[in-house]
């Protein structure tokens, strides 16, 4: 029997906390008894350069560990967007940052002002939590609660409230 599988790619720039966002997504999925694999790409240019987390979430065994058929791509930089725009199926959602990415206007492209909203929230570093909220909205395969619980666990206590707020913003403001 073929199990249902979701492939997420969170791509952007070093420092945007995408690896952490991937981990939160992954751990939330684990807590819901799903199978999960997380991989990340980094090269010599990691610091400040291109950065990417891949998460596969599945109801059953996951064999191949790379996202060869992504269902969802978060593109927080032009490089991230360009890397994937022509290499995914038309069903794949690409959620990009309005502020920094010029989209090709694919059918399933969705823009949102991630950077701007994060700054407005008071810290550009919460961009990853905004993104998590948006992801959950567009791709509701996990309970918000599980993600929020993991966010609380993974983040230093003092930044939790702001990140939860950011999550809510992302969840609220992005529409399918």
């Amino acid at each position: 029997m073929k199990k249902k599988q979701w492939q997420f790619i969170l791509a952007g720039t070093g420092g945007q906390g995408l690896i952490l966002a991937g981990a939160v997504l992954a751990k939330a999925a684990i807590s819901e008894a799903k199978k999960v694999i997380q991989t990340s790409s980094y090269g010599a240019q990691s610091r400040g350069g291109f950065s990417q987390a891949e998460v596969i979430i599945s109801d059953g065994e996951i064999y191949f560990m790379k996202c060869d058929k992504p269902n969802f791509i978060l593109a927080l930089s032009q490089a991230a967007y360009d890397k994937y725009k022509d290499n995914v199926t038309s069903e794949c959602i690409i959620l990009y940052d309005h502020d920094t990415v010029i989209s090709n206007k694919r059918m399933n492209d969705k823009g949102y002002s991630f950077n701007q909203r994060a700054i407005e929230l008071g810290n550009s570093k919460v961009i990853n939590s905004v993104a998590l909220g948006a992801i959950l909205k567009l791709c509701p395969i996990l309970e918000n609660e599980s993600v929020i619980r993991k966010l609380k666990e993974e983040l230093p206590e003092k930044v939790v409230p702001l990140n939860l707020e950011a999550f809510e913003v992302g969840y609220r403001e992005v529409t399918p």
Partner: protein
Amino acid sequence: MTTHTHKDFLDQRHLPHIWCPGCGDGIVLRAYTMALAELGLAPKDVVTVTGIGCWGKSDDYVATHALHGTHGRALAYATGVKLGNPDLTVVTLMGDGDAVTIGGNHFIHAARRNIDLTAIVVNNYNYGMTGGQYSATTPLNSKTTTSPLGNAEPGFDICSLAETAGANFVARTTPYHIVSLKNLLKQAITKKGFSVVEVITPCPTYFGRYNINPSPVANMHWLKEKGVPVAKYQQMTEEEQAQHFVIGAFVNKDRPDFYTMYQQINSRNGTEREGER
């Protein structure tokens, strides 16, 4: 007089470089290309031999001949290059890992042999390239990714090591002290025999973050404050000295270099040997 500018020694095709914002590597590279230009050299006269590491990546940006080898062996390649063609100006660019951790043996032997090379050692107090582990120059007690509670080993004084091992020219400075950096590089490159210029510039991304300050600007201020010239250093109390490091040229002598000695000895009459063995 100078027919080349520093840009002639810089291969701009690969810019922007891979180094983090504010990393000292770029400043040292700038000083290197300026030194070459001011010495009136042409790119074809120079072989830049790099190690493996952040600083070891600098060959990507030089327009001289270049050899980017395996980690820690830059001086050994360079020794071969120099003896393969003694007319070349051969400069090695090594991190502290390359120069005195994995490559420590080649370092002391190159100094002893007094081979006519220049070593520009960028001491960023850790392994930048692999993620900030401690190296043989990481100061005692510092926190790094492999000494989370503090380093149990003190770091080498690269300059003392070079001096004891026999180098002809030994100096230390920082990228903050850019003018002296350039001038020391010129002296080192000109000097016949083995020359070492240690450039202290803590890796802001790792060492700086854990031990000084994550900001490049703060790290530059640190260098400005910590690096003091010999004269000033000598006036300090021991406690103060422990909080600073001394910059300047410490050794500048003219012991004949290896190849000169080799030629001299081997021009002896071979028959002298007869019957002795």
